[in-house]
């Protein structure tokens, strides 16, 4: 098993684990963060797969912007829901 494969396996386990957490957690915030984490692990995996462009994009958009979008909406809903 090469180092590359080993890292990939590690990333795979990590991202799948994060995905499972996103599904089973009761807290939406944790779910959103876990999903962002999945994206982040995926973007590292893209680097391994010789796709730096994709890795950048996934990191910036998939794990970054998307997560913030969720939090914005979540925030609005919380504010209005509790009133």
């Amino acid at each position, binding site marked *: 098993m090469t180092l590359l494969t080993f890292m990939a396996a590690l990333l795979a386990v990590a991202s799948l684990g994060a995905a499972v957490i996103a599904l089973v957690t009761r807290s939406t915030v944790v779910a959103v963060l876990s999903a962002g984490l999945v994206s982040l692990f995926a973007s590292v995996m893209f680097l391994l797969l010789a*796709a730096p*462009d994709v890795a*950048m994009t996934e990191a*910036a958009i998939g794990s970054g*912007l998307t997560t913030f*979008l969720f*939090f*914005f909406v979540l925030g609005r809903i*919380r*504010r209005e829901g509790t009133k």
Partner: protein
Amino acid sequence: MNFTTRKAIPLVLLLLLGSVFYALFAGYTPDETLNRSASYYASQTVQDTGAQNVVTAIIVTYRGLDTLGEVTVLFLTAAIVGLVLAHSKAPKGRSGSGFLPSGELLTTGTRMLVPVILLFGAYVFLNGHLTPGGGFQGGAIVASAMLLMLLSDSAERFSHRLISRIESSAGLTYVILGLLGMLFAGGFLDNRILPLGSFGSILSAGAIPLIYALIGLKVGAEFSSILTSLEATEDSQ
């Protein structure tokens, strides 16, 4: 449907779908050499477009129409998110993300960081034809500046109007560049309306840097617009 069947049916379905995927997985063998599309790009990109980054060349020229569609997706999303939220103004009062305290530190930090971030974003999309990165990544970085400002509840937010102007002008210019390709070069979105320049320099690869810059601006503006709309709507009108 009770609790168990509500979850069991999707489970069974997805197991079946998984078997479909497994068939794909099991039947998959990586290619030994590049297939004909890829080998064309590998050998012709430099000659055709003068770009170092093949992915960029594909995105901006060969599959430029996709990319035009892609920015249009964001344009649409921005417009629709605006529409969706336009008629549901948030209640008066506190705005901001609601879970991050907007303190003095954040505000000050934001003021300092925003120009740096913007510059970095511009760097990323202008070098898209040479290094990894490009309009989308750069645009996302530019948008993060906007994000920061929103988080810090900064008073000097970008006006929504300005964002929309930038977005539209960039889009329009992009389309016009495409047309110019049709008029002066080999086809729609052909990058050779500008000289290809010397391979590997920043002002090379024809119109690619220009287009990617437009894309970066546009994407940045669109992300910003979406973020602004989602964050609060008092000033979205």
